[in-house]
């Protein structure tokens, strides 16, 4: 199950962070997302590793914590998407697919002329789309 998704701007400022758990663990998830930015930065700044996959937006598994797996995705505008999931065996293809749809939703949201770039995404439509994508992720991996 996806417990948290986040959009982080290129200055590592959170643009959108949404947890999908019932428990009051927003702080914990914020920490996990914030922490994973180090790994993103490292992968971005380390040209050796990203050499063959120069145009690859999917960053793969950032780091596994005790209970979570954190995946990352980096757009061309250096906006990061972070996915925190409790599923222990996740197929890469699923995650890629998720990020692709998530990216599309994000692009739609920031194309809104009333959206201020670099500010938090407050669009309700975006939130709905994201929660749909998140729900469908759970289904596809179960099936």
């Amino acid at each position: 199950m996806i417990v948290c998704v986040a959009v982080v701007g290129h200055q590592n400022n959170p643009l959108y962070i949404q947890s999908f758990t019932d428990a009051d663990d927003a702080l914990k998830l914020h920490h996990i997302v914030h922490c994973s930015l180090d790994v993103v930065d490292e992968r971005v700044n380390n040209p050796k590793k990203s050499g063959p996959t120069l145009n690859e937006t999917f960053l793969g598994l950032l780091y596994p914590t005790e209970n979570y797996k954190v995946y990352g995705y980096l757009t061309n505008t250096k906006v990061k998407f972070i996915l925190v999931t409790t599923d222990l065996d996740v197929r890469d293809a699923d995650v890629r697919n998720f990020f692709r749809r998530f990216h599309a939703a994000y692009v739609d949201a920031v194309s809104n002329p009333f959206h201020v770039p670099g500010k938090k995404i407050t669009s309700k439509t975006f939130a709905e789309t994201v929660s749909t994508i998140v729900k469908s992720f759970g289904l596809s991996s179960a099936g």
Partner: protein
Amino acid sequence: MADPAKTPLGKMLLDEINPVVMVLDTPLVEETCRKNGLSFVEMLSPFCVFNNIDGEGFEMAKFETVGFDSVAVPVRTASDQPYRLQKFRLRLFYASDIRQPNLEVARERLKQVITQAGENGDSELCSDPPPIENLDARFESENLPSWFAFFNKELVRSASFSDHEAFDHPVACLLVVSSKDEQPINQFVDLFNTNKLPSLLNDGAMDPKILNYYLLVHDNQDGTTDKATKILTEMRSTFGSDCQLLCINSSEDGPVEHQDNPWVRYKSETSSGQNLGSFLNVNDINEMRDIMQELSTKQIIPCMEQKIRVLNQQVSATRKGFKNQIKSLWWRKGKDEIADSSNGSMYTFSSVESQIRVLGDYAFMLRDYELALSNYRLISTDYKLDKAWKRYAGVQEMMGLSYFLLDQSRKEAEYCLENAFTTYLKIGPSGQQNATRCGLWWVEMLKTRYQFREAASVYFRICGEEPLHSAVMLEQASYCYLLSTPPMLHKYGFHLVLSGERYKKSDQIKHAIRTYKNAISVYKEATWSHIKDHIYFNIGQWYAYLGRYDLAVSHVLEVLACSHQSKTSQDIFLRQFLQIVQKTGRIFEVPKLQLPEIKISSLRVIFEDHRTYATPAVASVKESIWRSLEEDLIPSLSTGRTNWLELHSKLVAKTYKESNVCVAGEAVRVDFEIKNPLQIPISVSSVSLICELAASSDETQTDANSQAGKLQNDNELTMTTSRESDNNSFLTLSKVDFSLGGGEVVMVQLTVTPRIEGILQIVGVRWNLSSAVVGFHNFESNPRRKKSAKGRQRGNRSLSDNLKFVVIKSLPKLEGFIQPLPTSTYAGDVRHLVLELRNQSECTVKNLKLKVSHPRFLNVGSQESLDADFPACLEKRTEHHYVQPDHNNISQPVFIFPEDTIITAETPLLWPLWFRAAVPGNISLYLTIYYEIEDSSSSMRYRTLRMHHNVQVLPSLGISFQVSPCPSKLEEFLVQMDVVNRTSTKSFQVHQLASVGEQWEISLLEPVDTILPSQCLVAGQSLSCFFMLKNQRKSGISENKTSSTSVPLGSVVRLGPEGSTEPLFDTSSSPLVDFHRNERLHQEISHQGDSTVDFILISRSLKSDLDSGTSDPPQLFSHHSCHCRQVPVPKLKI
């Protein structure tokens, strides 16, 4: 990499892995030593370290120069290769201490270490952590808190004296007896034979036959050494040559002060630092040093060498070589079935495995790492096959360390340590201590190689269940993340937070605060607000717990305006904050309090200089409207708004020429929005402005003072209130109390009224939050430049300039009202209004002028019509007294009051105004009244009173005229009038139709009764009627009665019922004629000819309506339709 031995890990290993000497002594020996404040072991400890003269390590260098030759210890390897030990150290332990430390005791000790460190770090607790850029520099040079190293050492020691490792097993036994003891020889024998020996010797884990060294301690204060020497000879005859006499306390002339006291480092409690060893003089020290050197170089090292050689031969014979390997493999296989995990008793000291381990450890201690490594390797596979996991892990650990010290394969070293670490963990809680120790070594190794990231993850792995332990480990991990290149700041912050939380759990509040404060630098930017709030709030709470309420308040303040948090946490934050503030027992004054939020962008300053406003709302009208309106009013001499100031520059210092001007006794108003960012209601009270007023007499001086005072105040948390009290008599401040609901925005209007002349500066605003905290907001703290309402023209001036006023002497100020101006009416409505002007001051005003923005709507009447009865005054009089309309009224829209009009304090001026709702819509009417001040000494000669009214005009009657030529007569025209009632409820009674212009005469074609029997046009109804229009002039018919008076009256047709006696209204006199003129001007069309005609339709609202309408005055409507032309109809040929 540098010499591995010189790295921190190398030094640590040299310190920790050394031969152990077991000390057995009698109580009298201890007593003797106690005189110096030392135990026997402590007394000898400084002399257990031996350095090569050219070796590093300066601790002992001092003593070497005192009287020591080189103590380079010559050693031989197992294969008789001589080499030198750079540094050699003995570890002295009492026999009772040679056992595995009690976990609980060890834990207590660790806790004590941390608590102590917390107390010591108290001073830096209050200072803010350096910004993150400086952090690198701060920690780069291993400048981490020094107690980390100490703590780590303690942790390592808590795993010592395990039976699976030989380097903690004593290699020698030091038996000490005092010369005062009865029967010293027997005492020596008893000491070694008692059952108090450590279990290691008794349970067979190690060879009980160890080197014994006999020492007789003599206290020189007890007399001469005669008796002692006698005992020594006796000892020598009994135990052989391994006997020595140590004379101490030989200081004769009182206590000796030791500079650079050598014992301080070995004493855990540093309380009595300078008194240590006070009876030991130089001779004693030299004697101790000689004895220890002899013990190590002549006894222990040769003994170890010997043992290494013997063991090496044995091992080679049994285990080395292909044959032995095969043999052991077979043998192992057979043993497999019986092997179990109870490996403690499986290997006694005589077993081959133990011997190999001893050989390895001895070689390690004598720095022969090659030999050690080969033996460890040999034994490692055996232990693995035996599934003796603890021993296997121990050997792996030593292998890793050997690899490291040999600076050989890094990978191997790491692999071995990791292997050892995981194996220790695997065997459960009994291996925990060892795992920690192994992890620490691993970490140190990684740090030496600058692999900080890996080191951090190892730290993370060694934090166990125990919160305090893991807190320290996590904190160290965080610093590793910081030191790694590039620094991993996010992880640094995260681990600091984790660590702080664990510190808190184990009641180490000060440490918790320290870690959290360090973490602030990571999260300082507001973006990760959830985390930031968490940190600030917790720091605040912890400070409150420690009783540091001031710091607590300043931290909790940061989270107060947390609009992104949930309602409950907002509530908690606010409640906690108020609780802390309450505990401080005083009212806190906080600059830039975030609650509620002052919206600086909404700040508007409203003040009156020469421009005054009838109502506060008027001030919000754009200045440009007034400017255009007042253009003709204000004397050309002072077109520039501030020119009068230049004229009177002697009154006002030049520096303030650009300042705003306000008048003493008149309020300056500041409007701003105040917002509650939270979802919970907050109560705000005593909102008032902070102002400074410097009296003009000592203008410059006071101003300088107040500037200085202000600077000071900016830096302080609390603010002196003297300023307010000083100025109290000169200033009147308004105060507002209100409560803000969740998310509510309130417009606050505050005023300040200066009482004396001088310079007024509005500094900011202050308020009470929940009657506990006083908040300040300095308006100019926001450097953005803002326009105030008045400063639009000078928009480039900063806000603080706009908040600075020159207060001038009190002036008369007119107040004006227009009564009774409706707010909503119907188009065409004509009303009689009264303008009332009052002057409250003693000084009279004169030269009044008035200008109206919409003359179509508002006309100034004449003085006589003030008390006139409306609408009767408009009725046509039988005796005609026609007043020539004042044509100036149009050409010059400024109405100048008669010369002699003055307004004094007692008598208000009343002046009639005519209002007519010309067109439907929402209309803003602006009036400006210009007046001059009688008193010529005043710095302001004139002022203007600005009035503004909004009127909503609803559509009433729609009227259109169609003029067509009369088919029968050339000079006559047929006029069709269509009237539609466009209202939804109102009924109208058409009253009369007038044509304007002398040449026209209008008459009814048929009585209105026939068209409109009811006389009344109800809502939505329309009416058409026809008139005959005759052009008198062209027809050449002799002028009738009306035209004989040569008045361009036009003619009037009554539309009322036949025979009605209701009077007609005079459309040719003021005000209707004035309104008509304005309408004409307004409806003007491009090509104007003579052949146009204007009509005025006058209607009245129905009587019944009037009765139901409560306070409505009788209403009269006039509708003007100008420039009606003949419709160009195609002419029909008859």
